[in-house]
């Protein structure tokens, strides 16, 4: 509708200006800063001037090395055994002041695997960050499909024509309006090892067969417990998005299917699911982006522990940037996170593209 009546550069600038300016200052600028700071030694407060340090922040974060060792042998050439396992030289002797392996200096063992008698050690400059990356991916890989799936199930359930269905919709959505911080603190008591509701419930339904578990204090269950709670809190959000997708599907398609005598599975397979295609892509991307931001649950429930089993990327970024006042290190983590989120949403878009 471009006409001489709608054209006005001045009005356009004046009306869009304030919002655009603020977004520029508080989204775009910090984003560019994150990239710039990650190549410096910037600190929150420092007497020393800021200097360019090239890639060294990334090197300190992502540096990996491998070391393949043969088991120790005694004078006769037999493998030295210790506790029934072959004994390997300590990796310490290679990573600390060993002039033959300068590239490994300062690294620590991340994990190791055996092959054909020898053992390969994977060393990392920052083992905690590596653990955080793995945990975050684990969280996303489990939460994205499970939460999207449960949300779809709930949406289908809520989409029925039943008296009072709105009441159920309202209840399922309720946790979404409650802050994740509140939810996390509340669930700390539910997950409690001694008097937690969950343990009491499990022991009641199993007649005492299931032992008491300290859900958040055990490295094997802590991340799982956080995953369960996070899904409980957020699933209503995605249920509503699925629901609005469901309601865009034309009722005439369902009527036609009913006349043709299609089964419930057929209706879902050939009408509902194809109609939800765009919604599915959107939900997957939204959940993934939200899941990568995992922070509040960790901060309130576990502080990254026990034994780093709930460390996450954002928790590490805050630990560096805020607690240790190391803006450059925190920025480098932020950039790594952004690259991960961007690549994954691009991959998701590509995988779910319309095939013509």
């Amino acid at each position, binding site marked *: *509708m471009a*006409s001489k*009546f*709608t*054209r*006005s*550069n001045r009005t356009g600038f*004046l*009306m*869009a200006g*304030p*919002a655009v300016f*603020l*977004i520029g200052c*508080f*989204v*775009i600028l*910090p984003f560019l*800063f*994150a990239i710039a*700071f990650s190549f410096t030694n910037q600190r929150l407060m420092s007497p020393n001037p800021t200097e360019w340090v090239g890639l060294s922040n990334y090197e300190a974060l992502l540096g990996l090395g491998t070391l393949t060792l043969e088991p120790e042998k005694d004078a006769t050439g037999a493998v030295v055994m210790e506790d029934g396992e072959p004994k390997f030289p300590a990796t310490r002797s290679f990573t600390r002041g060993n002039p033959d392996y300068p590239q490994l200096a300062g690294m620590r063992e991340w994990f190791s695997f055996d092959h054909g008698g020898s053992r390969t050690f994977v060393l990392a400059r920052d083992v905690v960050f590596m653990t955080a990356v793995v945990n975050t991916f684990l969280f996303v890989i489990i939460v994205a499909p499970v939460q999207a799936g449960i949300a779809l199930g709930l949406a289908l*359930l809520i989409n029925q024509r*039943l008296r009072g*269905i709105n009441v*159920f919709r309202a*209840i*399922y*959505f*309720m946790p979404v*309006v*409650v*802050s994740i*911080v*509140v939810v996390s*603190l*509340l669930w*700390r*008591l539910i997950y409690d090892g*001694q*008097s937690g509701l969950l343990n009491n419930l499990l022991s009641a339904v199993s007649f005492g067969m299931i032992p008491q578990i300290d859900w958040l204090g055990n490295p094997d269950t802590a991340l799982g417990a956080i995953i369960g709670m996070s899904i409980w809190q957020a699933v*209503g959000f995605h249920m*509503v*998005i699925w629901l*609005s997708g469901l309601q865009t599907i034309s009722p005439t398609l369902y009527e036609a299917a009913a006349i043709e005598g299609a089964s419930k599975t057929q209706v879902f397979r050939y009408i509902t699911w194809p109609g939800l295609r765009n919604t599915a892509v*959107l939900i997957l991307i*939204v959940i993934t982006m939200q899941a*990568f*931001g995992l*922070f509040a649950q960790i901060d*309130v429930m576990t502080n990254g522990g026990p034994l780093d089993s709930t460390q996450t990327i954002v928790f590490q970024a*805050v630990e560096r*940037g805020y607690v240790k006042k190391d*803006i450059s290190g*925190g920025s480098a*983590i*932020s*950039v790594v*996170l*952004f690259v991960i*989120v961007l690549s994954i949403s691009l991959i998701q878009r590509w995988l779910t593209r319309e095939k013509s």
Partner: protein
Amino acid sequence: MAMIASDNHGLRLVTRYAVLVLIAVIFIFPLVFMLMSSLKPDQQLLQDSGSLRAFLPVGDISLQNYTKAFERAPVLTFVFNSLLVTGVTVVLSLVLCSMAGFAFVFVDWKGRGVLLSVLLATLIVPFETIAIPMLLLASKLPWVGMEGLSYGWLNTYRVQIVPFIADGLTVFLFVQYFKDLPGELIEAARVEGASWWQIYRKIVMPLSGPILATAAILKFLTMYNQYLWPLMVTQEEGYRPVMVGLQYFFQLNVAWGEVMAYLSLITVPVLAFYLYLQKAFIASIASTGVKG
């Protein structure tokens, strides 16, 4: 609906409702537990969690935990801060983002296409990835106040408000909504000689009730529930919002009764607000999806 009641039909109906109720229980039990526990002394609270009493207001019921919570932390200050920060941000956000949406949709000006695509691109930048550099930025920003020029925004209200007034999503929601309004109406008003401000205030805003509600609810939820940012920028008690205030309650020896009282105090008003405006809340979340 013609009800030909057969046993089969009745049974199916009962099963459906049973499933719905069971799921409802899963979503509601922690919240009921929170509310009931807030009324009980610590020892009883922990004992009750072994039985259904956990969800009932039975035993030694009182508001003592609430009194003690008020003694432990400046609860009223936190509540005031949260309401102030959330309220001001929501109002300013509605004004500035609706104006921007208006300019992008109805006004024809140089650079609007480019700027709109830049704004949309910001949607893929999660807040968590810019929080750290923004912390440094906030510690250095200038401000002109009563005492003249000063630097540093930490421990203020403005550091919690200004960065969140405008965001890509809110502008985008307004743009989508305005696109569906009849453009001829605006052009006709222009031909009649109405100014842009008159059109914005007298024609477009009165038609924007639903989208204003949506944008307000979304902003309200993000602002009131914010944690990471206020945690980093408010070291002084006087500026802390309710979510950061929670930290006073989960230190060394957790007094669960007080914790539950504080949680109920900051959550129940929001839940009541939600239940009252339930349709609008759900519609606003849905709108972030439909057109995305």
